[in-house]
């Protein structure tokens, strides 16, 4: 392809690709009746054939949820959520009791994932690296690839509903140990009505042979997705986990309230990457997903490490703070984030680093880009406990403003209860550099593409943290998300 043709192709990519995941898969679904009640909680539990203890804990959470007031401290504004106007369980009918192998998966669903660029066949993606995928469609997991190969090395990677049947003692021991149901209103709701999600168990000393990935898709109308992810890394193990999400374009807002819990034992490491591209709503701010997620990792063992990387481009409202509790001595927490908001999107995101153990270190790099009429906030907490001797934190959060209608805010909370802890926080806010834009424009690069390039440069530090094939996708996403932000 000649240089010129390439440029034209690139520009088309940028201008044609609106929200390309906005299609709806026409598939028969089976849903629980609309609304939320104890019966619905019981229905979900029965549907999943859950043991008694789990039903009990769901009901406990549900009863507690009823007593919790709606949180009001957040920056994003949205009308009160009508919890009764939503389906809490929706599953493709053909799935029945869950497909036993890929051949049994409804071809429509396979096509859907193919369209999303997530092949569910056990094939090698980019550059020959195999990735195991768990695909969650509305409330159920429809397929998990490479299961057999993973199990050879002792890794358990399956839908959480399956894990509850297969290894209930692990689930019972760890679920809710990092995010208790009393944590916040949305986490509590999830604890009551969670449907599916991924479960990962890496045994002692095992380095997971491939990247694990879950792909979440909300398809049905008026459905909330409440997935639950639990990853346990035993002593000396390592796993890299990716998560991607999309949803069709719909006029009404859909609620997505997930919980992710990570636990690392001595010398273990979990790398958790998210590319969040839920439907953000249209240019006027109509529709879009409410992404209210509670993500927290516990560095339980010595020398363990949890690293969160997130690229947040979708959702009407993103409201989440992937956090690390650094309990084990010498444990490490990392948070790398890019959040891009355009049109009427709102994001209130950041992290919490709770230093409890000795010589724990954490690093926070957050890059926020606001365009259009969007509003964005970094909200973070760094807490140095009295016993976190020699703990260290470095925080950098930079915001970039594109246009004069948007907002960018930074609210860090820094609490130090120990003299040997060192905390450093830096934040800057500025607009996109005119000189850099001029330089690119002068060389014939259209303004929008130039902005995408500059923004990609601004985010480079975080993009580098993503696994390679995701990094490519994320870079493209940056460009698409900023579309229409100029002129």
């Amino acid at each position, binding site marked *: 392809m000649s240089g010129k043709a390439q440029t034209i192709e690139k520009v088309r990519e940028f201008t044609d690709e609106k929200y390309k995941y906005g299609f709806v898969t026409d598939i028969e679904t089976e849903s629980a009746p609309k609304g939320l009640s104890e019966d619905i909680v019981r229905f979900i539990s029965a549907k999943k054939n859950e043991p008694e203890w789990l039903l009990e804990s769901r009901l406990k959470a549900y009863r507690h949820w009823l007593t919790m007031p709606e949180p009001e401290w957040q920056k994003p504004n949205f009308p009160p959520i009508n919890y009764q106007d939503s389906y809490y369980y929706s599953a493709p009918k053909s799935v029945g009791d869950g497909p036993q192998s890929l051949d049994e998966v409804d071809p429509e669903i396979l096509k859907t994932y193919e369209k999303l660029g997530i092949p569910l066949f056990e094939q090698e993606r980019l550059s020959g690296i195999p990735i195991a995928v768990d695909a969650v469609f509305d409330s159920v997991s429809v397929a998990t690839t490479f299961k057999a190969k993973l199990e050879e090395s002792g890794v358990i990677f399956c839908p959480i509903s399956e894990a509850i049947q297969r290894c209930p003692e692990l689930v019972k021991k760890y679920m809710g140990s990092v995010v208790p149901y009393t944590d916040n209103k949305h986490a509590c709701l999830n604890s009551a009505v969670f449907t599916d999600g991924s479960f990962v168990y890496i045994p002692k000393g095992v380095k997971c042979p491939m990247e694990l990935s879950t792909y979440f898709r909300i398809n049905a109308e008026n459905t909330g997705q409440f997935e639950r992810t639990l990853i346990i890394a035993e002593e000396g193990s390592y796993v890299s986990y990716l998560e991607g999400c999309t949803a069709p374009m719909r006029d009404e807002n859909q609620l997505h309230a997930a919980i992710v819990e990570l636990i690392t034992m001595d010398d273990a490491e979990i790398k958790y990457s998210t590319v969040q591209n839920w439907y953000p709503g249209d240019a006027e701010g109509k529709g879009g997903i409410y992404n209210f997620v509670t993500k927290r990792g516990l560095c339980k063992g010595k020398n363990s490490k949890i690293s969160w990387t997130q690229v947040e481009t979708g959702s009407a409202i993103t409201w989440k703070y992937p956090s690390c509790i650094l309990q084990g001595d010498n444990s490490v927490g990392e948070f790398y984030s890019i959040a891009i908001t355009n049109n009427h999107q709102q994001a209130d995101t950041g992290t919490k680093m709770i230093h409890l153990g000795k010589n724990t270190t954490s690093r926070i790099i957050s890059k926020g880009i606001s365009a259009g009429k969007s509003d964005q906030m970094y909200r973070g907490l760094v807490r140095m406990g009295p016993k976190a001797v020699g703990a260290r934190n470095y925080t950098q959060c930079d915001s970039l403003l594109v246009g004069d209608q948007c907002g960018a805010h930074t609210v860090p*909370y820094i609490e130090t209860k120990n003299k040997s802890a060192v905390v450093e*926080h830096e934040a800057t806010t500025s607009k996109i550099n005119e000189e850099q834009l001029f330089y690119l424009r002068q060389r014939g690069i259209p303004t929008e593409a130039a902005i995408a390039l500059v923004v990609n440069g601004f985010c480079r530090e975080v993009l580098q943290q993503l696994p390679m094939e995701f990094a490519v996708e994320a870079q493209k996403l940056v460009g698409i998300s900023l579309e229409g932000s100029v002129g």
Partner: protein
Amino acid sequence: MVMQINATQPFVDQFDDVQSRLPGAKLPWLEAFRKAGIEKFSKIGVPTIKTEAWKYTRLPNIDCKEFRSANLEDGQVAVNAVAKFLPDALNQVRLVYVNGIIRPDLSNLINLPDGVSFEPLTQALKNDPEFIESQLSTEELKYDQGFSALNAAMMESGTVFRVAKGVQVKEPIEIVYMNGGTDEPIIRHPHNVFVLEAGSQATLVKRHAGIATGAYFNNAVTEIVVGDGAILKHYTVQTDCVEAIHLSTVNVRVGKDATYETFNVAIGGRLSRTETRVRLEGRGAHCNLSGAYMMRGREHCDNTTIVDHLVPDTTAREVFKGVLDDEARGVFQGKLIVHKDAQRTNGHQLSRALLLSDRAEMDAKPELEIYADDVKCSHGATTGQIDENALFYLRSRGVPEALARNLLIQSFIAEALEEISDENVREAIASLVVHWLPAQCFVADEWVQA
């Protein structure tokens, strides 16, 4: 909720008791202003740690009944030495208050320049009530903090400082508030009004000091207007005694091409909290809000600042440095708000704290809230202990450890002192810092000579 009502109600009762004795009781506008204040206070109540702006500052379990309001006799408490801040050689223009009551015998107004009025609020209410009305009545609805509203209702003392258009006052002017030494702990609500008219310049030093040990509660509000092109340097030196509660709210409006510089030194006090709110209202307005605090024992110091950039081309700078020993707690909350269309705003904020003890605590919350795109805003916050390498360096050159530590603390604070543009004030504050340091520091000069 029940607790909150309990803490709030006694203050309201106290207002009902003393209302008729408060200065200016015959002025209808002031009466209305006080009424609005107490209503607002009853609505907002005493802040708790659930109040976001008071997240890190817990008011001690105060029962307002323990504090009675000040009376004239309290003003006659014997004072051995006035807590002068600047050397007397300058024949300093100075107002001295003891427990809120003006003490003409200790004050000095001989050198008061022309075009400057400088008098206690009680006097100003008699001499020029229209002026006070013009400064206060518009403020009525502004208070969204319980204690500011309570001050509006209860104000009984304070200073009115007014510089006429174009008048430039070279020498610093001093206000000394001395409290304590009373039979029972007292509560005071001073209300200051400082107005610099267009093109004027002045330097004002406000000193708060304890007379003797013993508790008192000081709830101050200061309203400041810096007119177009005016420059106000406003320094506050707070050396209250260890049982004192000192709350202070400073509201500042800065006009076109005007500058407001403030530096707040806090040494001591069971609880001291200064909330400074600056509105940069005219193009080219600039403010510098900085401070230093040194706390030990169980002292608590809170510096909260809110800067509103309302128009294009305004700048703000903040540098706060603190040293915390024993179980002391430091709090810094800074907020820069860049409003829509306030383009070319330049804002910088820095908070640094040095912890000397394992039980000391520092909480920082530097916030940026930005709605315009052509801005340069940044903030930085660090907390740490004395640099072991620097300490080793000094020790290896024969400096005794205690002295080396003192030198390092001194140099740490020195960075903040550089923000003070008035040399006399800077030197006076620097010597206060040295006196705070553990005793060994006094050998510093000897050591340098040897």
